[in-house]
């Protein structure tokens, strides 16, 4: 039995994310008073294992590993952890790891469910640079939406503490709420651009060859998600600051994506090859 498969490496990465999540609980309790190197290093270790798993899968397929739910979820997790490691180079923002690690752990556990990673046939039905780019851009968009939701969650927590005069609001290392709101809005905007381009490429590459492309449930779902984020961004620009409604919107929209992505993927003949 080969103990060094891509799934084993990914399992190890998820275990490290789990450790980081457990450690994050103590950071939540202490109110983020110090930047945290330990969490950053744990997530860096998880990232190395994560990249190894993705590389092994990518080399075995000879293209970007985004062909089933396991690979797609792994890719979204990779986008999120990469963004965190870059942001975490700024010491005072390292505490963000306490928000990122539970999300990575949750995504990892979800991705590891055996049904999500059926063996590939001799070759996936749709291959080529266009398909890889379509999938990669859309998954990066979901990564950006995930980070936007995390920033939204931080906004809600800090805003609540400021509104109700909690001492931890001034003690915490959170950035100002105005900045959190801006970060969340920018992440959602960038995610929206990536999603738009990804969907356009999908329509251009697959729409030409497939009958019923626009009636596929995943395509309809994606357009619905696109409309949700468009509405959120429009609402945000209507006001000088979106405030709590915008932050709740960012969190709820990503929760919707997380909860329905799996189901629509399974129901879509275009995206799921039994």
């Amino acid at each position: 039995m080969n103990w060094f498969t891509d799934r084993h490496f990914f399992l190890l990465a998820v275990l490290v994310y789990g450790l980081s999540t457990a450690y994050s609980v103590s950071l939540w309790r202490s109110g983020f008073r110090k930047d945290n190197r330990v969490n950053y290093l744990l997530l860096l270790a998880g990232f190395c294992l994560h990249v190894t798993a993705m590389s092994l899968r990518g080399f075995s397929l000879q293209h970007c590993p985004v062909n089933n739910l396991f690979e797609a979820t792994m890719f979204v997790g990779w986008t999120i952890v990469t963004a965190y490691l870059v942001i975490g180079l700024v010491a005072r923002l390292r505490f963000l790891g306490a928000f990122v690690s539970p999300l990575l752990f949750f995504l990892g556990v979800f991705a590891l469910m055996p049904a999500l990673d059926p063996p590939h046939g001799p070759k996936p039905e749709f291959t080529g640079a266009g398909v890889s780019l379509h999938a990669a851009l859309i998954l990066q968009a979901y990564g950006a939406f995930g980070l936007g939701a995390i920033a939204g969650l931080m906004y809600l927590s800090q805003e609540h503490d400021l509104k109700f005069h909690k001492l931890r609001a001034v003690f915490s290392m959170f950035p100002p709420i105005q900045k959190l709101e801006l970060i969340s809005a920018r992440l959602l905007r960038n995610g929206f651009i990536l999603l738009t381009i990804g969907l356009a490429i999908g329509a251009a590459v697959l729409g030409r060859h497939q009958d019923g492309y626009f009636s596929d449930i995943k395509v309809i779902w994606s357009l619905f998600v696109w409309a949700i984020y468009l509405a959120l961004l429009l609402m945000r620009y209507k006001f000088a600051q979106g405030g709590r409604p915008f932050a709740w919107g960012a969190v709820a929209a990503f929760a919707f994506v997380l909860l329905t992505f799996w189901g629509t993927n399974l129901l879509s003949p275009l995206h799921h090859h039994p």
Partner: protein
Amino acid sequence: MSVVVIGLSHRSCPVAVRERFAFAEVKIPGALESLRGSGIAEEAVILSTCNRVEIYVSTPLEPGPAFQALKEFLVNFHAFEGELNEEMYAISEPLSLHHLFKVAGGLDSMVLGETEILGQLKKAYDLALQHRHTGARLNKAFQRAFYTAKHIRTETNIQRGSISIASVAVELAEKIFSSLNEHEVLVIGAGDTSEKTARALMSRGARGVVFANRSPERAQLLAADIGGRAVPFEDWPAQFQHVDIAISSTSAPDYILNRARLEPLMKQRRHRPLLLIDIAVPRDIDPEVNYVENVYLYNVDDLQTIANDYLKSRQDEIARCEQIIAEKVLPLLTSQKLHR
């Protein structure tokens, strides 16, 4: 040879006594010279601030005679004629070194954990060093004290947080707004605390300050002094379109701002965040306005509670600081014993 300290501080006597023993900076080198010339000390540093006057010496004398001689020196140098009982304290090794480290770390300061004292102590030491009144013993003790003070600052929360109303208000503003230099401050009713708060916000980079006071002369005076502009008192609601922080401290008997009055103003502001600081007693702003979206209202009790909590958290850190000091003083004492 041991390190001893004699002095007076805010803990032992009032300012009326302390000021009689204060050293003018220009007189310190002469005082150090005469201390060493008298044979009381081989090395000496004089620290003279508004809260304390202390002489640190490395002396060949036993602590008892050394304290007596140092006390006489202080009394004679300042020509003090009154009676001294508990006002002056004298500490011998090892507690003298603990005391030095505590002073450097701000643990003995009037405002617990303040950092100004470290700069003052460094200045006092540099002055003695420049005039060659320090040697191996005091050099090592002071340098180790400075290092320990920095260590305490980074490893504990002793210096963390604001313990005055004005600085808490600034800290809150910095938790709401990305950068203060994009935001203007409105002061309604120019009382003492609101003036201090406006000054603190300006010193942290606020874009400007607008004063609306019933007495226009006072508003203009403050505007000229702090660098802002004065507007007629009745114009303050119109300013809400431009400002993002408002400090209110009028002597009005009722609320001057309530939810019904604020909601249309927020609409005009396109719901930009607004920090309201109500320092007035009786209060100027109806607490209901805190329920308006993107409005953050703090009254004087809220600010004072945060300041007190900060102070309490600093006090909770004292034990940790003293443990660090004990760890850092120990090697110093061991090495001094070896060299005796």
